[in-house]
């Protein structure tokens, strides 16, 4: 049980925030992010929010131009993670007032801080 990483990525596939909870080398991260982003961004609204990739299950959610991707292992309640993402977004909304990509880019420290604080829900 557990979250392995959290990514926030824009529509172009650029990473806007990344937090890993296990050690991966830079190269591994880059490849992983590329693969996942390619897979998830190609999916449409009618498809489910879960994608299996290597040993991970990616639970993702799209908000306007921003994708939230959470990598979990097989022992995780997918819907709980999905709603954790929403809770995080709601919290960010509360703070930034309708959060957008730029808020996260230019307030990286706040985004990180909120993530840390919310994390106990999901762990």
């Amino acid at each position, binding site marked *: *049980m*557990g979250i392995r990483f959290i990514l926030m990525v824009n529509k172009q596939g*650029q*990473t*806007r*925030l*990344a*937090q*890993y*909870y296990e*050690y991966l080398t*830079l*190269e591994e*991260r*880059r490849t992983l*992010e590329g693969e996942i982003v390619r897979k998830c961004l190609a*999916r449409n609204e*009618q*498809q*489910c*929010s*879960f*994608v*299996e*990739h*290597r*040993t991970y299950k990616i639970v993702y959610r799209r908000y306007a131009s921003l994708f939230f991707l959470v990598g979990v292992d097989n022992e995780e*309640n*997918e*819907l*709980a993670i*999905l*709603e*954790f993402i*929403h*809770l995080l977004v709601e919290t960010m909304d509360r703070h930034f007032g309708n959060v957008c990509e730029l808020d996260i*880019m*230019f*307030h*990286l*420290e*706040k985004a*990180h*801080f909120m993530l*840390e604080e919310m*994390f*106990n*829900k*999901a*762990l």
Partner: protein
Amino acid sequence: MALSGMRGLSVFISEIRNCQNKEQERLRVDKELGNIRTRFKNEKGLSPYEKKKYVWKMLYIFMLGYDVDFGHMEAVSLISAPKYPEKQVGYLVTSCLLNENHDFLRLAINTVRNDIIGRNETFQCLALTLVGNIGGREFAESLAPDVQKLLISSSCRPLVKKKAALCLLRLVRKNPDVVNVDGWSDRMAQLLDERNVGVLTSSMSLFVSLVSNNHEAYWSCLPKCVKVLERLARNLDVPQEYTYYGIPSPWLQVKTMRALQYFPTIEDPNTRRALFEVLQRVLMGTDVVKNVNKNNASHAVLFEALALVMHLDAEKEMMSQCVALLGKFIAVREPNIRYLGLENMTRMLMVTDVQDIIKRHQAQIITSLKDPDISIRRRALDLLYAMCDTSNAKDIVEELLQYLGTAEFAMREELALKAAILAEKFAPDLSWYVDVILQLIDKAGDFVSDDIWFRVVQFVTNNEDLQPYAALKAREYLDKPAIHETMMKVSAYLLGEYSHLLARRPGCSPKEIFGIIHEKLPTVSTPTISILLSTYAKILMHSQPADPELQNQIWAIFSKYETSIDAEIQQRAVEYFALSKKGAALMDILAEMPKFPERESSLIKKAEDTEADTAELSAIKSRAQQQASNALVVTGQQPANEPPQVTQLGMVKIPSINNLENNHVDQEVTQTNGTMGEVEPQNADILGDLLSPLAIEGPPGVSGTETLSEDGALALAPVGEQENAIKPVVDIAEKFHDLCVKDSGVLYEDPYVQIGIKAEWRGHQGRLVLFLGNKTTSSLDAVNAVILPPSHLKLELSSVPEIIPPRSQVQCPLDVVNLRPSRDVAVLDFSYKFGTNLVDNKLRIPAVLNKFFQPVTLSAEEFFPQWRSLAAPPLKLQEVVRGVRPMPLGEMANLLNSLRLIVSPGLDPNANNLVASTTFYSESTRSMLCLVRIETDPADRTQLRMTVASGDPTLTFELKEFIKEQLISIPTASTPPVPQQPQPTIQPISSSDPGALLAGLL
């Protein structure tokens, strides 16, 4: 807070954002990294504000995927800053940038500890978060007791407690052996009484982790968990801020139910009753609502409740309720619920016996196999696989086969394997099984491993009733215009053994069978040819007394292959030829194959292997893996295919004589492996061995070679595609190919450096000059050039200066002596440092075989006596080359001429043929005349027959392979790694080849 005030950082982020392309972004990042580096160098003048700003930039750059290999010290030092903004940055960046093994972390331990035991709550939180995120061993050893103390301290506020619980959780998870949790059950029980939902949630997470390691110690906590559930789900006793869309903390509910699943049962009847009451409420009371979030949250709880009910193996009544719910879920429109419905049904099958109820939903599940979403299709496939039994195998397998036709690449292999296993496990009758497997090979031959068709052969051999049917089916498939190679193997085997059973049917006389099989021979690969030869021998045997015409035809084929370069084929041809001369005695020698002893299906074992790493691997990789696992399954010894891959890699970089030896060993391993695995010990009489087509798999390193060439390509990629920050501006592979036919030109170029080459060749010696040019206005440091010579070349590079001054060029002469013929290539490992970037390139040096040629033109009077005197292998080798890059004859002549193989027009009477000659120089061979003849087929430009002759067997072989590479490979710019492939990958093939073995001996 921190970022808001930092203009420089905002500007930097904006600039990065405005970059039009990756290249611009890289330049901007490089500039910034340079800037930060210089600022950090004279750290004295740096204010905390500036330091903070730069560290943020570093984090930002790191997040974008660039390597930040400096400034870690600065980040760590910020941890000890007195003020929050700096400290926060320090903690955050440290936890992102450094991993648990990083040395600098050790420096920070004391500061972190001081913050944890200090009185400032926000600092405590920061420190606990860092420790939790990194969770390293040293942290665990020195800090776990402090964290534990905080968690149970009564004076500690919820804010800190939450963090302490999470921190401890991570430490326990990562270092279960270090963190001492003996006697924690009482404390845990106490924590689970917590009223504050935030602290309770964190504690529950910790509890899940502890219980998962050792539930025995925590029985006393079980009732507490049920209490928590009652409080949340029944009493709704939760403060407003912890309800989510009206649901009392769904996350805590989920976690509590998860914790309960780690206990095997619940003994106490009261607790059990209370829990089931709650579960019943969840199962019944969850309705589908409009609000997506509420719906998701309530279903998160519902799915967890389902899992818990399944685990506790409740009364049958509740179980069927669960299946009913899941049945509803897999039919809803909402894809998430459908996905989870399928997933949980599969799980349910594993824990309880509900097969019959689930079967009612079979139609719906099959529909999901056609869902547009691959995630859902995967789940459906898994479920179908799990629910299959004798009653529904026919339907399910047929669905899978049908789906196989349209399935995407990513799923095909898994699909094929699963269909094969189900067919084997649950076949209602054996003819159906044969049908399924043949269809499978027909539709997805590439994904049908040898195991699968071996298995068919075993079944057919062991079941006499099946033999005519299988032979007939095989015969039918051969009528198809194009059939897969695997199909060719299996049909050839089956027809060889059993076609006489069909003799009275139309189109099945020995002659016709032979005709239709032999028609396909030119299209199959070497291992299949050996099977075909066995088939011919068998046909001959079954048609005794033989039809003289057929017999002559087959004898002609045998005698043709008696000179085959492939040892296996050659041996078969020679022996079959000799045996078949024995007339009726042949019957005794080539009798039908005896029955195989019953054995466990290797497929099923393999399925377990493959399931572990689901279909997400690239096809090549998984196939290679599959082959390795084949070996494992079949022989039960070390996967013999593995080691060559390793040496393979080594060979490319540092070719040395050792490799040759290694390859001998490897080959032996493969050989024993093959014989042991495929031929049953019961069949130990020698002829049985030889005749068993199944023995092919092993001997000439065939399967190994396949893996090698595929994997070799993979392993090679790094040579072509180095992950340097600085990318070459020219196509290295293309330049190399140009230089193979030219004597001067550019070998490599990137924004900073250009390497040119100029070469002179005389006989077996050559002198190259490398021109190393610095294109920039600053000097290049740490320049290093090392030659990795192959064993057949003696290379001497004069010293290379360590620094190349700005805008200047240095010349480095390189002397080459060719010792003996070989196609191996020398590699130049060239590295230098520009700014922060270490650039390292492995470049092939164009000192290739054809450089040691001296053109020679021969007249007909000179050519033909030579040609005739070099009559047979190994001095004269002939091969039919397929997959040739189609080109007009003139172009081919030019290509040969450019390689200094001078074409003599008019020597060959046939205008479609080319004859060329050259003289080769090396220390071992001295000067040696080489003759080449290429016969092309104007109707099919992709294949040709090539004959190469010289006075030295190694040279003949190497030259033949060399020309083949030139004809087959596509040295174009578009795919740089591809041209790399031929040179090195050929090596292992050749070393399992008699010619190369010979070469090795010489």
